[in-house]
C-alpha cells in the first residue's frame, strides 16, 4: 500500500487504479495514516521554515520501520524496483530539505532579511498567478543563460511556476 501511495504521489498511477485506491483509502485507517504521512513530507517540503530539526530523526525511525525490499518479485521486477526507489527517494528528499532548512537557520531567511534592509533594497513580488502558467520570457531568456545551461532542465523550475 505504501508503494501505491508513493506511485500515486509520483503521478505514475493510472486513473482507474487511483480511483480504486481512493476507495480503499476511505475504508482503511492505516492507509489514511500513511497517506497523511506522505503528504506531511510534501507539506514540509513546501514550508521549510516550519521544519524542525528532529523531523529527519523521526523519519529515520519510520524508514527503519519500512520493510526492506531486497529482491524484486519475479512477476513485475521493474515496477517493484521502482516502488522501492520511490519511497526511499521521498525520504532522502526529506533529509535534504532538513539540511536545507539548517542552512537557512544559520542565516536570517532571505525574505525577512530583505524586509529589514534599508530603503534602497527592492523586494520583488514572487511570480504569483491564479493558475499555472509558464513565463515565455523566462524560458526565452534561459535558452541563452550560461547558468541555466549548466542546470539543464532544472532551470524550467523557474519558468514553469507552481500555484
Amino acid at each position, binding site marked *: 500500500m505504501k508503494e501505491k501511495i508513493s506511485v500515486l*504521489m*509520483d503521478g505514475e498511477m493510472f486513473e482507474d487504479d487511483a480511483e480504486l485506491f481512493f476507495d480503499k483509502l476511505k475504508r482503511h485507517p492505516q492507509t489514511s495514516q500513511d497517506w497523511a504521512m506522505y503528504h506531511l513530507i*510534501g507539506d514540509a*517540503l*513546501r*514550508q*521549510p*521554515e516550519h521544519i524542525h530539526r528532529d523531523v529527519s530523526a523521526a523519519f529515520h525511525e519510520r524508514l527503519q520501520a519500512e520493510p526492506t525490499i531486497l529482491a524484486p518479485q519475479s512477476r513485475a521486477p521493474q515496477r517493484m524496483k521502482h516502488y522501492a*526507489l520511490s519511497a*526511499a527517494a521521498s525520504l*532522502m*528528499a526529506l*533529509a*535534504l530539505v532538513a539540511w*536545507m532548512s539548517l*542552512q537557512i537557520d544559520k*542565516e*536570517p*531567511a*532571505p*525574505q525577512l*532579511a530583505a524586509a529589514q534592509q534599508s530603503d*534602497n*533594497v*527592492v*523586494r*520583488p*513580488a*514572487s*511570480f504569483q498567478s491564479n*493558475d*499555472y*502558467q*509558464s*513565463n*515565455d*520570457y*523566462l*524560458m*526565452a*531568456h*534561459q*535558452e*541563452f*543563460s*550560461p*547558468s*541555466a*545551461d*549548466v*542546470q*539543464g*532542465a*532544472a532551470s524550467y*523550475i*523557474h*519558468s*514553469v*511556476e*507552481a500555484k
Partner: protein
Amino acid sequence: MISPTSKWRMYLALTCLSAFNVQADPLMSDAEWLRTMVFAAHQTNFSGVVVYQSGGRVEMSRITHVADGDGEHERMEGLEGERREVIRNNDKVRVYLGDQKVRVENRRSHRVFPSLLPEQMQALKENYLITQSEEDRVAEYHAHTVVFQPKDNLRYTRKMWAHSESGLLLKAVVLDEHGRIIEQQAFSQIKIGGKDIDRKWIKPSEDDALHLARHLEQASHSGAESVVSGWQIDAIPVGFKKLFELRRSISDKKIPVVQMVYSDGLSGISIFIEKVSQAPTKAGLSGQGAVHVYNRRVGDYLVTVVGEVPPRVVIQVADSVRYAGG
C-alpha cells in the same frame, strides 16, 4: 541563420572534441570546470529527483535527460500538485500545465554555445574569483565543489557541486552579497548513466504529435533573425557583454519581439522589447530565487528585463533602455 540540424551537428562535433576530457579531472583549471559541467549537462544520461528551495518555496521535480542519436531530450516533471511538465526534444519544447492542453514551442537549440565561447570564458574569469572548494558527497555520489565569487555586487555568488566523474551538476547554491542563500537546488536521488532510464516520454502521444505538426507549420514562417533594432541600453552593468540581438517570435505573441542577450560568463540578462497597445497586466518587479524580472513601458513599447542578477540590476538596465533610431 543556421538550421537547428546543423547546429546540432556543430554541437556533436564539439562534444566529440571534448571527449578527451569527459572524465572530469580534479586538477582541471577552475574555469574548465564550468565548461565540463555544461558538457555534462548536455551529454550525460540521467534521471533523478531535484529539490529546489527559495525563501518559503520548496519544490520537488523529477529531471530526466537523454542524449542519443536523435539529439538531446530532457524532461522536468513536478512531483507535487497538478501536472507540471516540460519536455524538450532538441529545439522543440512541449509544456503541460494542469489540465491545459499541451503547448508547443520552438526553441533555439544552441543553448550550449554562449557559455563555451572563449570570450565568455574570459568574461567569467574577469568577473568572478573561481576557487575549488572541499570534496563532498551529494546523492551518494562523490562531488567536486567550485565557488564563483563575484568581484563586485552586480551579480550573485554561486557554489556548485559537480559529479567528480562526469562533471554533472548535482547541487547548486546562489548567495547574495551578504552571504545569504537566495536559492538552492540539489538532487536527493539520481541515477547517472545506464540503459534503464525511462525514455517513453520522449515520443509525443499521437494527439500531441498532431498538435506539434500543426504548430510547426505555422512556426516555420516566423523563427528568429539577427537584427539591429535601434534600441539602445545605456546602463549595462560592468562585465556584461552582448551576445545577440534577435527579432523572434515568442509563444503565441503575434508580433515578433526584439531580444537582446548579455552575459558575464555565468549570469545572463535578456532585454525583450515588444509593441503593446495596452498597459501590461503585471507591471514592475517580480522574482523567483535568483531570477528577477522588471517591466517598464517606453512609449508604445513594453520593455521586459530578465536576468539571474540582483533586483536593482534588472531595474537599472530597464530604466536605461531607449530608442536611438535605426
